[in-house]
């Protein structure tokens, strides 16, 4: 107990000295997020310094082992760090699919060589990872994927395509699911392979969404060489690892909304826009919906906190991640629906500086994808019903 207290005061002092003031401001929009990577252009010196300082402590990945560059913190210590970061409203030094997705899979299933090669650059934010899972004909039924590999001894030659690659045009490396044994039953012939996006034969094409933005790409492989020593776990055993990785992805998506909601309570936005009438929001019907939303938001946050308190540090939440993914994304959609109602006519404006280029409606439209990406809400409910509740069929 005493040791934890001391750690807390050390963390507090260190953050006070090392977290730049500009990194303690709420996110204004997506442009304030630091993704890192080979081609990253830091928005400011502060953003760069904040990443470097946190990475040196291993605190971009606080619970990873020190030998891979992580912070080596157990659950209690990691929780304190998180609380202290929250206390000063610090921005995340790094957003990274390396930390939230491929890193945990490598820690659990990767060889020592792969861990040493890939984990430290992830911690330092030097390599930006992207995910190659879905295909045009393999969405909810992911295991029917068809991107295939020809075995040429020490390497594969891959042909096919992936879709819904988040920031595919900005990625340095990809973790990708490839059918390496077309004869095997569909869940058993898949491998999880790591490769450099600069490899010849890789092209990406942005997908324009209803929000008018392109956060996703299609990715094409044309006789692309992928090394066998970059297969995570054993060849053809990728499905188990892919599912494990998905639980981390779902947990991450389950926290969707924190980025924006960290900024301001929905009810405060509503009070500014609509005003009070005898101490109550002037629209009583909208007020009820906002109160219900804010209650559910607290419920979700406390349940994630409880799940982490129950689990070991860094451990996967297993099928429970599906529940968090479901609630987190449904909540985020509700939040944006309510923001549209609060914004009313102003929320219809699509361009111009006053509307920050239509930030409110674009985020609303983008949120519709939350309950589709990473496995639809319906797939999450299937997983809860079958794997947690043990319902048949």
């Amino acid at each position, binding site marked *: 107990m005493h040791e934890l207290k001391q750690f807390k005061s050390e963390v507090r002092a260190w953050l006070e000295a090392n977290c730049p003031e500009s990194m303690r401001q709420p996110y204004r929009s997506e442009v304030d997020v630091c993704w890192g990577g080979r081609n990253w252009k830091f928005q400011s010196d502060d953003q760069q310094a904040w990443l470097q300082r946190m990475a040196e402590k291993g605190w971009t990945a606080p619970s990873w082992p020190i030998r891979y560059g992580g912070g080596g913190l157990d659950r209690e210590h990691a929780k304190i760090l998180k609380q202290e970061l929250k206390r000063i409203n610090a921005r995340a030094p790094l957003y990274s699919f390396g930390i939230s997705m491929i890193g945990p899979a490598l820690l659990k299933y990767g060889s020592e060589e792969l861990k040493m090669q890939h984990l430290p650059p992830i911690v330092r934010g030097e390599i930006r990872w992207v995910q190659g899972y879905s295909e045009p004909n393999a969405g909810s039924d992911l295991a029917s994927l068809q991107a295939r590999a020809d075995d040429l001894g020490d390497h594969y030659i891959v042909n096919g395509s992936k879709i819904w690659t988040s920031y595919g045009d900005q990625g340095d490396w990809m973790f990708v699911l490839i059918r390496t044994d077309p004869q095997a039953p569909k869940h058993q012939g898949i491998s999880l392979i790591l490769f450099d996006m600069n490899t010849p034969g890789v092209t990406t094409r942005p997908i324009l969404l209803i929000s008018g933005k392109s956060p996703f790409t299609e990715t094409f492989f044309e006789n692309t060489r992928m090394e066998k020593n970059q297969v995570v776990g054993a060849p053809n055993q990728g499905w188990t690892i892919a599912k494990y990785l998905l639980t981390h992805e779902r947990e991450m998506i389950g926290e969707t909304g924190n980025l924006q909601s960290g900024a301001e309570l929905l009810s405060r936005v509503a009070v500014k826009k609509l005003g009070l009438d005898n101490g109550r929001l002037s629209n009583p019907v909208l007020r009820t919906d906002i*109160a219900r939303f804010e209650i559910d938001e607290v*419920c979700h946050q406390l349940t994630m906190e409880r799940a982490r308190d129950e689990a070991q540090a860094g451990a996967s939440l297993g099928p429970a991640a599906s529940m968090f993914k479901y609630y987190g994304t449904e909540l985020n959609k509700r939040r944006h629906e309510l923001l549209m109602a609060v914004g009313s006519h102003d929320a219809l404006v699509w361009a111009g500086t006053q509307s920050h280029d239509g930030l409110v409606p674009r985020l609303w439209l983008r949120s519709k994808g939350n309950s589709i990406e990473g496995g639809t809400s319906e797939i999450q409910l299937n997983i809860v019903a079958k794997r947690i509740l043990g319902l048949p069929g």
Partner: protein
Amino acid sequence: MALVLNEEQRMLKESAKDFLRQRAPVSHLRELRDSKSMSGFSKELWTEMAEMGWTAILIPEQYGGLEYGYSGLGIVLEETGRTLTPSPLLSTCLMGVTALVKGGSAEQCGKYLPEVASGSHLLALAVNESSRHAPYTVTTTAKTSDNGFRLAGRKTAVIDGHNADTLIVSARTRGAANDSDGISLFLMPADHPGITIERYRVLDTHCASHIMLDDVVIGGDALLGELHQGAAVLDRVLDASVIGQSAELLGLAQEAFERTLEYLKERKQFGVPIGSFQALQHRAAVMFGEIEQCKSIVLKALHALDRDDGDIPELASLVKAKLSETAHNVAAEAIQMHGGIGMTDEFDIGFFLKRCQILETFLGDRYFHLDRFARQRGY
């Protein structure tokens, strides 16, 4: 504080669960109903609960209690929620004890708490006066007379009012009918001259009462807490009480859900278990998620009461609003998913919805608490 039970709390939970399954399952409630019990609970069972130490959980050690906190009592209430066991735990051991501990003098605590701890004294809090929960709407008057007070008015929806040895009554000592200022709390024996208690039965076998106060003369030492400032004590008592009710609703929702889940696995139609139908699976999965959320917030609220920190009024209303909605939906879905048999009196599942409606309504339903939550957050 981590949102998990410690070892000691897990043991309490297990022993409460075992005791209630053996001694007071849902059939116990049915027996009380069928025998038209006047009190609405079993005195023999209450004696056994006292022997288990449940009546002493919240009471400080100096008054013969276990000082095991709201988290401890919440665990027991959650388990009585599973078995729908009627008892004065809420009225006496939570509401009455909290009022005394928060507002009572050392003398008052010394007089009542040891007897409550031993299970030999029951308390009831008389707050409401109209057909819905409105704790500040007090027209019952308490006028100073000689060295004491003279009370007149009418209270309603008093939980266990007909069972209590001592009543705690809110009355107006100054101000207008809806002011929180000017409310004072008074302790008085239930059989004091001028008090008439009229018992009535609610949906299941539980009872509540109307209380008429006709020129009730009491001494100055009957005042609980400060004159005119009773609302401060009352607020904390009601916050703690709705959190306790929520723990009970949590047990009720879990039990109704688990029974339904079993039914989905065993009931066959079209040659397959009905639980294999996606329409039912998705609804079951959502109910599971809602109940998981309820577990987290109840635990958080109980911790907040024990540590006396956090925003307790906001949290209390949040918890009551959420638990009311969730438990109600689960209890209603439980009937729907049981099909025809769910509608029968012979089958137990309908009891859960009845008990749920009672717990929801007493001390403020979801609409009251949604409104209060929003006001606590400043909108």
